[in-house]
């Protein structure tokens, strides 16, 4: 797996290869583990909202408005690990 692999997948609009890469990244080389990690992060995020907790929408909109798409993409990956940490189920060998 490499940037070259990803560029080829983007050029071919091969979403399966792209999501496979993301799963391998989140699963430390294990695609099935990565799929579960993605589900785990989304569940953790959802759990925080089901009780109508107060949220700062202005902060959300401002973050999106003030930052470039690449920074937001980076944040998106960072948020995945944030919610994984919150879940208390840490599968990775090291730490952020």
């Amino acid at each position, binding site marked *: *797996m*490499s*940037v*070259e*692999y*990803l560029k080829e997948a983007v050029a071919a609009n091969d979403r399966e290869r792209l999501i496979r*890469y*993301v799963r391998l*990244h989140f699963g*430390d080389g294990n695609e099935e583990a990565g799929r579960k990690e993605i589900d785990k992060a989304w569940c953790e995020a959802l759990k925080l909202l089901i009780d109508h907790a107060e949220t700062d929408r202005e902060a959300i909109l401002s973050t999106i408005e003030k930052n470039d798409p690449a920074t937001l993409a*980076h944040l998106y*990956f*960072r948020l*995945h*690990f944030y919610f994984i940490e919150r879940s208390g189920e840490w599968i*990775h*060998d*090291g*730490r*952020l």
Partner: protein
Amino acid sequence: MTVGSEIRQQLRPGLWKTVNERYPGSMITKYDLVPLAHLDKPLSECRVAFVSTAGVQLKGTLPFDTVHPIGDYSFRRVPTSAETSDLEIHQLKYPTAGAEKDINVVFPIERLRELVAEGHIKELTENFYSFIGYNMDPERLERTLAEDIAEAVKAEEPDVVLLAPA
């Protein structure tokens, strides 16, 4: 084996081919000969540097970017005078439990200082160097990170540079 024949032999010649078969494009491919370096004076007269992929850094410095899907192409200088309690590891791709107990298992800063104190090594460079090994763009790794570290290490004028993965 004579010194001459050793120089003409590639170090672990099948390694790059093997890794690239399993992880296409993830490794820098080298077909040119990289000659083995020979030490031309005793270690006790040498200034030694250390370069590691362990993700070791001084506490309080910007953590290595362990979440970026393509990797982090920066490095950190680690003063060789640093206390191990001032160091930490930011890395997701190798087990760090042992290193968290004793960082010397991946970053032997105290062991090397001991070798200096015992006279086996003349001295250490002012800094050691550290980065993380999760880098999915081998061309960028070679073009930027490797060049940047090489330049920084060379400026410290070591006689010996130890390279260690984690």
